[in-house]
């Protein structure tokens, strides 16, 4: 199994970084303008959905939570057939800054999910850094996200929330 690590330092206190990463009811511009839904409690399902809730793009099951330092959840794209993987968020306070470490593991080879997240995590973390440090959403990001949401009608049926919630969310065990 393959695993990847992504790390970034954000110049803001840990509580503020946690609040931004896992906020609800406000679009996550860094996560393609989706809305985080679900309780951050072990056993609960979390989803990144469209504003209306009709489509779910990413979902997983919460395994561990330690506010504001650690969140572990399984992860799968609703539009991919790949088995769920594992995402571990670790936040470390470093003076006035916060180190955010994302370990994404349990890929069964170079799957579509692997190829997608390998390039998207750097972009996502980079955007969270900009959003938190400057409080500004890059115009291109806002526009790109709006375009993506406008195209949801083209997405496969598996992305419809009622279908996505039926998907298996248990990540394979580590070898």
């Amino acid at each position, binding site marked *: 199994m*393959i*695993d*990847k*690590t*992504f*790390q*970034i*330092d*954000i*110049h*803001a*206190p840990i509580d*503020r970084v946690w609040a931004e990463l896992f906020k609800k009811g406000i679009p996550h511009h860094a996560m393609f303008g989706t809305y985080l839904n679900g309780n951050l409690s072990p056993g609960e399902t979390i989803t990144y959905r469209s504003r209306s809730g009709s489509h779910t793009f990413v979902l997983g099951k919460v395994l561990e939570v330690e506010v504001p330092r650690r969140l572990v959840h399984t992860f799968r794209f609703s539009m991919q057939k790949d088995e769920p993987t594992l995402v571990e968020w670790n936040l470390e306070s470093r003076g*006035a*800054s916060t180190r955010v*470490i994302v*370990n994404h593991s349990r890929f069964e080879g170079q799957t579509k999910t692997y190829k997608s997240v*390998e390039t998207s*995590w*750097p*972009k996502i*973390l*980079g955007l969270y*850094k900009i*959003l*938190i*440090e*400057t*409080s500004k959403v*890059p*115009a*291109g*990001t*806002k*526009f*790109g996200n709006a*375009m993506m949401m406008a195209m949801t009608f083209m997405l496969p049926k598996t992305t419809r929330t009622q279908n996505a919630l039926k998907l298996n969310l248990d990540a394979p065990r580590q070898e």
Partner: protein
Amino acid sequence: MRSAASSSSTPPEAADRSSIVKNSIAEDRVFAAMSSRVRRKILDFLREKPLTTGQIAAKFKSLSRFAVMQHLSVLARAKLVVARREGRERHNYLNVVPLHQALTRWVQPEEHGWAEMLGQAKKDAETE
């Protein structure tokens, strides 16, 4: 959205400047780290899979383990390599985020291109 700076006692403008300086220093470290052929090769190896320092050193016949460790420390300072302890071993992982941060304004200008294009179209329409 509240400014990151406003939650501390530091004036917002000073905190913004401090972030810019810190980000520039981080960028300098990335480019300095990438200026060495050996260090780029190490990143190539780590892109395939995480390796221990010993495993990396074994791939360089003409370099001492100490030299490899020095190269690794430059990469670690630039945050391009992240070490994770797994049992008794310490594995080095490639972290592409700083590289993405440093290069994105040149290699992905299309991210901001849409807005600029629309802005220009609006400007053109208004000045016609």
